[in-house]
């Protein structure tokens, strides 16, 4: 299974190819859930925003299984400033 993956302002220790913050294809085991993907990426912060195919996915819905061709964007729980 292959998804289109992008990290924003985050760096993964297990998938360093994502750390340029561009879109990359990511090959994953079939049926892997969104939550399991986040765990695999070993991201540094506690909370994240997640877009799956341009839809925001709350924490409570992240058990959803991924499918080939999905677009996943992950960004930090960021706050605004100056």
């Amino acid at each position: 299974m292959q998804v289109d993956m992008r990290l924003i302002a985050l760096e993964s220790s297990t998938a360093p190819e994502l750390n340029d913050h561009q879109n990359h294809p990511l090959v994953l085991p079939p049926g892997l859930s969104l939550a399991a993907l986040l765990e695999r990426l070993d991201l540094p912060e506690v909370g994240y925003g997640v877009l799956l195919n341009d839809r925001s996915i709350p924490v409570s819905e992240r058990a959803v299984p991924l499918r080939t061709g999905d677009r996943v964007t992950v960004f930090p729980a960021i706050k605004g400033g100056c």
Partner: protein
Amino acid sequence: MTWHGRVLRVDLSSESWREEPLNRDWADQFLGQRGLATRYLAAEIDPGVDPLAPQNKLLIATGPLTGTMASTGGRWSVVTKGALTGAIACSNSGGRFGAELRLAGWDLIILEGRAPRPVYLWIRDDDVRIRPAEGFIWGATVWETEERLRVRHQEPLLRVASVGRAGEAGVRYACVVNDRDRAAGRSGVGAVMGSKNLKAIAIRGTRGVPLLHPQRFMSAVVAARDKLNADAGRDRLARYGTAAMMDVTEAYGALPTRNGRQVQFEGANHVNAKAMRARRASDGSSNLVRNKACFACTIGCGRLAHIDPDHFSVQGEQGRRHRGVEGGLEYESAYATGPMVGVDDIDACHYANMLCNEHGMDPISFGATLGAAMELFEQGMIKAAETGGVELRFGSAQALVWAAEVTGTAQGFGQVLGLGAKRLCERYGRPELAMVVKGQEFPGYDPRAMQGMGLAYATSNRGACHLRADPYSDDFERVTPDGKADIVRRSQDEIAAIDSSGLCAFTTTAWGLEEFAAQIDGALGGGWSVERLRETGERIWNLERQFNLAAGLTAADDSLPPRMLGEPAPSGVAKGRVVELGQMLPEYYRLRGWSEQGVPTLETLGRLGLSG
């Protein structure tokens, strides 16, 4: 303790000053900075006064932790009735100026009246002087002003807060700039300072800041700093700066683009944090040079940057002075000089931001006003004859650079742009094209994708603002309006307390109110707890609301532009949505303990000690 207990009251009309004791009861009730200064202002002026009249006052306020070793303990505020909004204005800045005021032995400066001639205020501990500015710094830029004051007074460590030519000329969104590129930026506080013929405040302080429980304070400071240092959000702010937000709002569809006609910008990759770090062909350097931190800050989110020497904006003799390393783009300035006006030229955005610093004007309001002007131009309402032939089209870097210069120096059509988006659009008969609340322009978040932010903009006491509430985490998870009212109300109260402490809100990436309470109580004593901070914040919010109601604002001012309420977002996660303000606002009023007309009830005021 921690307070010196000294207020400096300056009557500019008579060019005289006196010392008076700090009102300790008010400090107990309102903490400091934003809360305390608002209490003084509300007691001393008629809220209905013309903001630019001598009867308005301008307060320079510190918090109990300003000037201490607490991480980010350099915050200070300007409080007045805003020239842009006609509402309460509290504009918060960092740098080193606020700490210097405390180190000089003063807690608060109250500036009243209007000087009969341009002047500046010079303070060296107890030595206070009001000196003529004409023929010296009046008419000078902020940068020239700081340099000339240091040379004349032979004080390399002199800290200066001043207005540029925008403040002198009454640009409605002029700000007070300190330390070259930090600013009390919003609501037109610089226009009020300029209207008083006060060019600058220059301070050198050689005293300390007293602490009630030094050991307890330092224990709390070290624990809080360690927690902040280990936080991934702090690391991100240092690494990417605030501009990391650009990719988030772009991906989410919350990036106001071309005056809010779109919510995603195809050129975002050219004006984001990554673009600031990209090596360029001309000199092998990047736009970003290094980080910059304010007094006592252990985050260092500030950026120092320089323009590509081959860029059109820095050619010729005029451009030479902008080739150096200066304060770089933050997210808000990048949004306002980039997507909001459709420009994807990072050097042009940086140049416009430099002019905002140099001339002393708020880049958010400038960019959003220019965005409105571009829409008016493209609709044929503004003619090229009015702009001296300049085509004010979305995406024009040349128009952006030109507009920043003529606005900051109040030349020609720049005087019209200096009115702000609300007055500009009213002038051309299209008030609905102004992306404003209470006359203040939108920051870089489209509320159709961020419902909580929509409510935060609408109810902000100083007009559209991204720093008066913290709905971010929830907004970036849910696009529906349910539950937003309580998130906005609670965070408004917490931020009002934080803004009154002398510390920076960016610390909330790691800290809760527990860390603030421990540090405040160590310095000040008196039993400052989380609950007391929450109640103090609610008291401040309601005091600001009372001021605005007395100034003539009503529930009708708690609204958003028709575009946000009636034109669905064209793309992004909120595609097809508008702001559901009609659902959120009544719940917000109810949770606040206000009437259906948005007026605090007697019960609410009594509970907060505001009914007297």
